[in-house]
């Protein structure tokens, strides 16, 4: 055998063995752990449409995050102005990242401007307006840089918090990936209760403490009679037996006394008296002292505990609470209490998140899809194999062998790509369709070659010469023909999402593989047969 041929045979044998090796984790069942250290690849990763699971695209409401931050800064500004004895009305935060400050005395202007310049570099100070009575109106505007910084931070924080929550819930192999535009992609394979997962992920969990305004009767108050600095809210009750939710009006002082941002821990406890679950939250040192201050100053008054703008409970402050712990009740079920604890532990989201896209596949559909995919593949493969056998006889068998090799290679590479952290390619249902499609298309390359060889044989050439001529004439055409489909596949790869990308991947792999096997593998086998076995005629 010519030396070249021996090398080629060796190369192909190695290639096939490597492919089989890469597929071992997929084919094998349970392996001892030492096995895994030798494995380069993992099982083939299945997409959500085959595994079942939930795919969510969330968007952080970054505008609200900016608003919240500006509000916080305006409150801080108020305290600082008080410290510096700058006489002014309370700073008002407005939409668009503005804080409006009305100085009561022109003489404080220099002090104020100085304070803003040193303490608030994120704001630009516009020309003040002179008001009657010697007042001055200043407008502070959040710079573009600062705005986008807050937005980015909000998106990043939301991502972290959501990751925490998903971790706490304990879903196997979640995928949480930031996307452009402040969006977050969350993929939870194999999830049993998608609704609950959505609730946990999407809950803003903003905890605030406000005082109840007992001076007004909540049932009879109207907009006109509402005292300044108070607002109307609702206390939600759920009847344990019927499950019906009722809401009672309650008037609160609008000022936020404290928020939940200092919470370090949240646990579920059972109230022995009423046999109801509740959640206790623990504050850190700063929060504990804040809480102690607020309860000391307001003993015997009612404290409203508000979760995402809904009043959960409004107990009376019996005595100052210095232990740094608060109790949140609210007619919870055990599950709700647990979920609330998760959400409080991970921290409030910097801004509400909205679900932009959801694709959830139930596990039964996943299984069915796998079955259908495999069935179509087996039947399609069988038909094509049979056809090639009948039409091209032994050469047809060779083409069929090439087909199986293609499959082997595609799956092996999928296994590798799936286990690479940076790519994490998955096999989806369209991906299986792509493989099946390449089964049909792969035949093309072989047909091109075989038809040419038949032509050459008809012209009277010897088998060896006919093969030579056939292959060389066909190669360029094969490359040509497949390049255009490849271009389409690559474009799909670039612009496609999710399952479609899976299709583009398998299509590209299949095309590349079929070109390779048709041009080199089949040739090597032909050559081996011709030289080794001295065949006079090729069955084609």
């Amino acid at each position, binding site marked *: 055998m010519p030396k070249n041929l021996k090398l080629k045979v060796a190369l192909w044998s190695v290639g096939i063995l490597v492919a089989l090796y890469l597929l071992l984790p997929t084919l094998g069942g349970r392996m001892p752990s030492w096995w895994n250290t030798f494995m380069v690849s993992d099982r083939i990763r299945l997409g959500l449409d085959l595994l079942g699971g939930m795919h969510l695209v969330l968007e952080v409401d970054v505008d609200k995050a900016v608003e919240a931050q500006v509000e916080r800064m305006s409150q801080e500004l108020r305290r600082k102005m008080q410290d510096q004895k700058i006489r002014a009305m309370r700073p008002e935060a407005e939409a668009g990242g503005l804080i409006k400050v009305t100085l009561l005395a022109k003489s404080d202007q220099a002090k104020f401007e100085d304070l803003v310049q040193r303490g608030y570099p994120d704001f630009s100070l516009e020309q003040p307006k002179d008001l009657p009575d010697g007042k001055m109106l200043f407008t502070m505007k959040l710079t573009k840089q600062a705005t986008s910084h807050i937005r980015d931070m909000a998106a990043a924080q939301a991502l972290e918090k959501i990751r925490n929550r998903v971790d706490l819930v304990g879903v196997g192999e979640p995928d949480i990936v930031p996307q452009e535009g402040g969006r977050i992609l969350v993929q939870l394979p194999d999830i049993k209760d998608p609704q609950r997962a959505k609730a946990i992920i999407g809950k803003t969990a903003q905890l605030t403490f406000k005082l109840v305004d007992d001076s007004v009767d909540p049932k009879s108050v109207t907009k006109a009679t509402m005292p300044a600095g108070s607002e109307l809210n609702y206390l939600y009750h759920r009847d344990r037996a019927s499950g019906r939710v009722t809401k009672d009006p309650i008037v609160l002082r609008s000022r936020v006394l404290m928020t939940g941002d200092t919470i370090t821990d949240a646990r579920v406890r059972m109230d022995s008296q009423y046999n109801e679950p509740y959640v206790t939250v623990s504050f850190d040192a700063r929060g504990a002292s804040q809480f102690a201050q607020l309860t000391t100053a307001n003993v015997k008054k009612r404290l409203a505990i508000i979760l995402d703008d809904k009043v959960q409970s409004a107990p009376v402050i019996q005595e100052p609470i210095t232990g740094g712990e608060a109790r949140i009740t609210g007619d919870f079920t055990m599950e709700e209490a647990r979920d609330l604890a998760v959400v409080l532990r991970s921290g409030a989201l910097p801004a509400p998140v909205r679900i932009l896209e959801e694709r959830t596949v139930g596990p039964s559909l996943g299984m069915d899809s796998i079955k259908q995919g495999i069935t179509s593949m087996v039947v399609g493969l069988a038909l094509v194999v049979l056809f090639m056998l009948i039409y091209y006889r032994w050469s047809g068998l060779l083409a069929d062998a090439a087909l199986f090799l293609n499959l082997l290679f595609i799956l092996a590479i999928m296994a590798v790509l799936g286990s690479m952290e940076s790519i994490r390619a998955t096999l989806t249902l369209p991906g299986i369709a792509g493989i*099946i499609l390449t089964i049909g298309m792969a035949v093309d390359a072989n047909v091109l070659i075989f038809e040419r060889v038949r032509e050459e044989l008809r012209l009277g050439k010897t088998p060896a010469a006919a093969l030579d001529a056939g292959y060389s004439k066909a190669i360029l055409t094969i490359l040509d023909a497949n390049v255009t489909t490849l271009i389409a596949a690559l474009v799909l790869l670039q612009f496609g999402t999710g399952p479609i990308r899976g299709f583009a991947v398998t299509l590209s792999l299949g095309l590349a593989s079929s070109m390779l096997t048709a041009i080199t593998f089949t040739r090597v086998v032909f050559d081996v047969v011709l030289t080794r076995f001295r065949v006079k005629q090729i069955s084609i």
Partner: protein
Amino acid sequence: MELIKPGINLDFVGKRKLAFAASGFLILLTIVSLFLQGGPNYGIDFAGGIVVQLKFKAPTDAAAIKKALAPLGMADALVQRFGREGNEFLVRVERSDRNLDGLGDSIGQTLKKTYQDGFEVRRVEMVGPKVGKDLRKKALLAIFFSILLIAVYISGRFEAKWGLAALMAGVLAGATLLVQAFLAGTTGSEDTGIVALIVTALVVTLGACWLLKLRYALGAIVALIHDVTITVGVFSLLDKEVTLAIVAAILTIIGYSLNDTIIVYDRIRENLKKAGRKSLDVVINESVNQTLSRTILTSGTTLIVLICLWILGGGVIEDFAFAMMVGVVVGTYSSVYVASPFILLLPEGRPILKRATAPALAKPANPRPRLQAAESPDAEQPEPATAAKASAAKKRSRGKRGGRKRK
């Protein structure tokens, strides 16, 4: 075994008028259908909305399900059967202004009241307006870039004039930038912007091919447009949904349909080199016949697997497979009956059928390749539909008669 005997010689070129008429009719049908339906039937991927796939244990029907959903007030919801098994249904709410968040869950809960545990929510897909917009944009960009890349590739490959291909790429880029700048000034959705880009790309490509005499490229692209249009038309006629998967199918068809065309063109060029006295239409016919075996076989095997996918693949894959099937059939037909004879329509390839009957004796030895359009008085009148093109071509070739040698 051989399905197509080696010496086969069907007259494809002769039947081309019929073929052009048939194609023309189908394309017209497509345009009318699209016009009447107000565009393709966009799925929720592009229009936004929500789809819930349900499986019921006991037989039921769409009306009953819709009734069960009445408490949610979904007059705009579509309920239809899904798949072949008979107990699966799709509830679809499209692009409403209502808040889609949580609608999937509400649907499940509401149905529980009527069916209790007798059903299962198999799949929920919700696409908000923002994501819908994104996906539309991505789909259109994908189509645009494939046209771009393929146009450049075809010009370069076919005519082996990479310089010209680069020139065309430049022209395309320039034209699209112009259109983009123009549109940026006007108001209008992003979608129309990208559609305009696609149309520009196509028009520029066709025009450039025409002007630069890239006849093969022109033929291939015309065949492409023909294939995609008819596929979209079939979907429109049958009122099937156009989803992301269908767009993927269309792109694949674009790539695949070119295969056949390239194969035939390669053969035509190969045969032209050793054609001797034969006229163009005879050469084309021969080439098509020679490659017929391969064409039928490849399309055949691809169709086999597609039929498997169509029957066995399950709901989502079914439509995709159907689109591909239509594309493959139309693509094969177009390579044989549209792309190949099309070359005859172009300036140098004006129909010169009379030559085939008059043997070499009647014509003096011609140093120039026989393909150059001659002003022979007995040249056949071009078809009425292409009269305008042909007369323009006549004028052009008249001017060039004393001119350059053509390949």
